[in-house]
């Protein structure tokens, strides 16, 4: 039942847990008053549990060497998947950046168009254009016009 992934996932989780524990001890102060858990106890507990679970997973994977099913031989991530994941991530980061700098009204259509073209591989310009404008307008009406909650206006933009 154990997959090939576990053989490296288990140890990496343990390493992650150890890094976590190091950070926790370095940066979170202990209890201020005697007898109470304080802000550090819970994070430490979590680190220890995760480290333990990582070890158990590694052991299970070791014991089942040579018994993998063929299904487990497929790679965890194909190149295409990795690219699309990175692309989506990059686009969201870009969106956050643009919202901050040039504001909702400009950033949203740009990001929608980019996503449609680059990620969804749509080449119908009418669809791209109408969606970009439609969603931007719709959101603006709901948030700004109807409810008066301000959407980001962009720090690079100086409104007249």
């Amino acid at each position, binding site marked *: 039942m154990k997959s090939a*992934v576990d053989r490296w996932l288990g140890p990496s989780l343990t390493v992650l847990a150890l890094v976590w524990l190091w950070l926790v001890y370095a940066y979170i102060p202990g209890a201020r008053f005697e007898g109470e858990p304080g802000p550090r106890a819970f994070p430490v507990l979590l680190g220890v549990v995760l480290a333990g679970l990582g070890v158990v997973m590694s052991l299970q994977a070791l014991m089942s060497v040579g018994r993998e099913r063929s299904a487990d031989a497929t790679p965890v991530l194909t190149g295409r998947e990795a690219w699309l994941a990175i692309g989506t991530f990059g*686009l969201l980061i870009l969106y956050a950046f643009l919202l901050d700098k040039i504001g909702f009204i400009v950033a949203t259509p740009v990001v929608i168009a980019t996503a449609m073209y680059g990620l969804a591989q749509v080449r119908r310009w009418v669809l791209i254009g109408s969606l970009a404008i439609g969603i931007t307008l719709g959101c603006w009406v709901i948030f700004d016009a109807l409810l008066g909650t301000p959407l980001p206006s962009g720090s690079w933009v100086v409104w007249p």
Partner: protein
Amino acid sequence: MEALLQGMSVALSPGTVAAIAAGVVAGLVFSAIPGLTFSVALALVMPFTFGMEPIPAMALLLGVYSGGMTGGAVSAILLGIPGTPSAAATVLDGHPMARKGDASFALGASVIASAFGGLFSLVVMMLLLEQVAEVALRFGPAEIFALVLFGLSTICGLADRSLIRGLIAGVLGLMVMVIGLDELDGVGRLTFGSVQLQQGVNMLVALIALFAVPQVISTFVDHGRVERPVIAERVRAVFPWRRVFGHWWLLLRSSVIGTVIGAIPGTGGPIASFLAYDHARRFSRRPADFGTGTLEGVVAPEAANNAVMGGALIPVLSLGIPGDPATAIILGGLLVHGLQPGPLLFQTRLDVIYALYMVIAVSWVIILFIQLAGIRVFVRVLRVPPHVLGVCILVLCGIGSYVIRNSIFDVYLMAVVGVLGYALQRMRIPLAPVVLGLVLGPTLEQQYRTALILSEGSHQIFFESGVAMAFFALTLLTIGWQVWSSLRASVTSKPGVA
């Protein structure tokens, strides 16, 4: 009697009913958009009520509240993204139902279950207000800790194949919630001097990220590669009254869970719906079907999270003390209009109390109508090609994450958590336990620490409480049962593999 008539006449006046309807629509729209919850909606609608008469003002707020409680299920079922944290458990079976072509059935069932839960809690509020408030008062930190620990033990049930992966996922979820300013001691935890990190990872931002981003990436991956499954949407079952009420006993139990948990300060919708979901699975005759799109998996959490509303209003009305941010706004709305809820209000302004009850009842009727009529419209979303829908969801997630706290940082955070979620999913670490960890983590830790501060460090406080001990026993039973059955399963399945 006079008060009753007077209250009813105000509550049923055209102005009030219009306010309820406006509130319900606003609440539905808000909660259906991921990132906007009824708490945000209530805060935004609040200024509109300043100029209104007291009862229509409360009608607007309560309409938003109840509309906002139900709307979360719409996006949970159709898109697989919970519109509100309370609807996170609804995704688990609601979305698979939609994928099987039963979206309208699932939506119909969720609305009926929601209305049932909401009305049930209203009846409880009317008849047993004092008693439930009394029970809620007995839940101190030790008891709430035990309750939440029990909730966490349901991770075992959510870990679909491997118990160890479920536990890892749960711990990762708990870890995420450690980051930020510690509410009890006021010290930053793993914030590395950043003011932005001090606000921590907002639960809703994390939920949007974990549910939406991996799914959107998958639709992009599948686009053009995987033949798009033709979803033969069966609209016939929009009014599944009979099938929903076939589970009346489950509905009733879930509503009780929701009402009681709603009344306990410091808990709330997400905990109630996960507990209801888990107990439905445990007592089901076909527990293995859960997660593949069963009716019970939609009905139980929806009845519970809407029953939370009535429950949460109980301490507000009976004690004048709100238990969560949403009811704090409701309380503010009452106070702005010179109405101080609490025991005295029942003696001096009984008409107001009756009017409020009536308003809530009417709001559920309106919700039923709007939602059931709207289902045919909602399901059209599924006709949008997935990759186009994916782009829309992506942008909505960005806006949604921003609006929760008006923070650009949250948009960055959503991107990071979302991609991490995708990575976890690819490593076959289930995301549902991560969500449970996120939802329960802060309460779990805070109540534990507060309990020990109360007892000056003695764990005796947990053992002295009968309620806490009962929940500990249930937790042990749950874990024990799970370990035993997974051991038995691995023993019997071994010869079959290889």
